[in-house]
């Protein structure tokens, strides 16, 4: 079996990792996990709605 990733897959990994490091830090994640209003559906993607869920 071939376990090497393609150049494209490596790029995908690096760019996603970079994005998450700059946009999805631990404090951000904690705030979202602790957000109240459990069960309230949001409009739009969760990433655009701050702590509204």
């Amino acid at each position, binding site marked *: *079996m071939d*376990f090497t990733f393609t150049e494209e897959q490596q790029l995908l*990994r690096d760019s996603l990792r970079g994005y998450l490091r700059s946009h999805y830090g631990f404090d951000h994640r904690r705030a979202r996990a602790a957000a109240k209003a459990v*069960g309230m*559906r949001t409009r739009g993607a*969760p990433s655009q709605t701050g702590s509204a869920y």
Partner: protein
Amino acid sequence: MSLGGETAPDPVDLMVVMEELGEALVLEPYLETVVTGAALLRASGGPTADALLDGIVAGDVRLALGWAEPGTRYEWAPQETRAERKGEEWVLSGRKSVVIAAPWATHLIVSARTEGGVSLFLVAPDAPGVTLFAYPTIDGRRAADVEFADVRLDADALLGAEGAALPLLERVGDATIAAMGAEAVGIMRRLLQDTIAYTQSRQQFGQPISNFQVLQHRMVDMFMQVEMATSAVYLATLKLDAPAAERARAASVAKVTVAEACRFVGQNAVQLHGGMGMTDELAIGHYFKRATVIEGELGTVDHHVERFARLQPEAAE
């Protein structure tokens, strides 16, 4: 970029993405929407499914699959939830437990018994007769128990052919196990990395505790668990297009290996952090909680050991 037809994401691409989402401990329902939900829609086909697949790419659609029921344990076949054809419409009744990401979802995909077998339906979470009992799960996500009281659905709410959903659920379930395993690998890498860093900085008896051989041995065992889980996830991912029994065996092997690794790596990461491992302020406890949920999600170790045994090919004569 699309999630449908020939441009469907490659399972290895999804594995790469899931690993990174795991390492960052992302809460958003990517697994439920882009892995599970999109695969069900793609297999079902039709204009409704195509529109939703486009909606996922646009960021407007989030999905949750309601499959488990109080009496079904980890089997995919629904018992209590039924849909009956009434003229042009379907009438859905029953209930689903622990529908992960349901409170976040724009659309629910619900399995139900119909005259011809097991079928899938697309249900709006705010449709009359649908009740969500939502709650947070220990890993910071959201789930709901969902009740359906004579919910009237249009004819096009039926996804795919009537009565044909059971093998599809099995297949997509295995793809979900593989992707969730990749998430777990990302989580465990981070647990191990943080534990090594912590033991190198924490001083006791005038030296960093990472100097103690007992702790070094423990961290080597954690490393081995992560590597075994990684290999099992690779195998399950590469077997997703194999014949059903072969694919399912690889998925069950991955689920068991990942679950055992999650428990070992998670618990030892907390243990080696001492009291710090229990605090809400440090990331380690949050990674541990997600790892603990993954351990039981989509079937426990016992369930998958049993499934693996059931699927063993007959010994050669």
